Every structure is written in structure tokens, then in C-alpha cells.
């Protein structure tokens, strides 16, 4: 019974990561990709996601 609860835990932890990122005020900078690359140790998965999406060109 508690095994299934343990399965949910990683999900909530992942939510905390986004929360932790959003808790800090935005910084005035241009290169979002560079910013995320420098922080890939701190947010491994979130940085991967950011690199995927921020590298999409607008045309």
C-alpha cells in the first residue's frame, strides 16, 4: 500500500524544483541557454527541458 505512495514522491519532488526556480526573481540577462547550461548541476532535468525549449527559433 505504501509502495504506491512512494511512487508519487518523485513527482512532488520534481514540482519542488520548478517551485525553487520560480521562487527566485527574474534576472536581467539575454542568453537563457547559457544561464541554464551553467546551472545544469543544480537543476539537471529542468535545465535539460529549458535547453530544449529555449533553443526553438521563432521562425
Amino acid at each position, binding site marked *: 500500500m505504501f509502495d504506491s505512495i512512494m511512487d508519487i514522491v*518523485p*513527482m512532488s519532488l*520534481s*514540482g519542488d*524544483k*520548478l517551485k525553487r*526556480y*520560480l521562487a527566485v*526573481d*527574474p*534576472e*536581467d*540577462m*539575454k542568453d*537563457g541557454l547559457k*544561464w*541554464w*547550461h551553467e546551472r*545544469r*548541476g543544480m537543476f*539537471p*532535468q*529542468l535545465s*535539460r*527541458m*529549458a*535547453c*530544449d*525549449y*529555449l*533553443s*526553438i*527559433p*521563432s*521562425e
Partner: protein
Amino acid sequence: MYFLRGTPTLATIIPAMDHIDKVLTTSSDSDKYSIPICASLTIGKHTLSKYYSKTGESEVYQIAMSMLVPFLSLIYIFLTAIHLVLHPRHKLEYFKRNGWDEASIETARNIVQDEFDRSYSLLDIEENQSTASTTQTDCNITVCCSFANTYYTLTTICTDFHLVCTQKHV
């Protein structure tokens, strides 16, 4: 100014487009500009509506657009939300500054959260195994691979999202 940058991305284009739209709307309504300028703005609007009516003449085009536009705009909303939220310069502040209500900001945040849970939270093990020797090139290759994956899941998510939206309206 935005368009002079090396590589324009969604995060730079969308605020720029919003800005142009805002300036055009306010300046065409204000008394600040002389009559000739207001008149040319009106002519511009007429030309636009002429093009709109031309597209209306083609039935096939209309049907195709009616099917395509909701789908494309969903992808657009989806990409925009993720793009802006994950850009360290904007995060949720962009939405707050532009007068989005709390519920819409929460939706934008949830889009990012759902996509993260769906496609990225499970990268944990793979990431731990490879971080020890990750070089810049390794990182680029994996980024490309997961980017292809993202595009694949994107279409399914958009269909889900569209279903949820239509169910709400019924």
C-alpha cells in the same frame, strides 16, 4: 530592435509583438496624432479587412484554417508558456506585468509542470549515470535527441489539451 538580434527566439519575439500591438492600438485611438496619420491607420485597417474577406471566399481554405488554427494556436500557447516561464529573464513575471489573472498564470505554470513531469522528471537515472563525464558536445547531442522526443509528445499533449478545452465548453 529585437529583430536585429542574431537569433530571434520566441522569448524575444512575443514580447516585441505584444509591444507593437499595444502601441498600434493606443496610438490609433489617441488624439496625439494628426488627422493624416489616423487616416492612414484606417486605410491600413481597411486593407487588412479586404485580405480577410478574400480568404473567406475560399471555402477549402476556410475549412482547413478552422481545423488548423485551434490546433496551431494550442501549440503556440503551449510553446509560449514553456518558453517564457523557463526563460530566467521572464519566468512568471511577464504574465503578471501584462495583466494575466491568477488562474491563467497558474495554467501557464501547470503546462510547464505537466510537460516536465511527463517528459523530463524520469530522466533522473540517465542523467546521474552520464553527468560524471558530460562534455559540451555530449550535452548537445542529448539535447537534440530529447528535442525530437519533445516534438513527438507535443502533438499528443496538444490533442489532450484540445480535448480538455472542448469538454469545458460543452
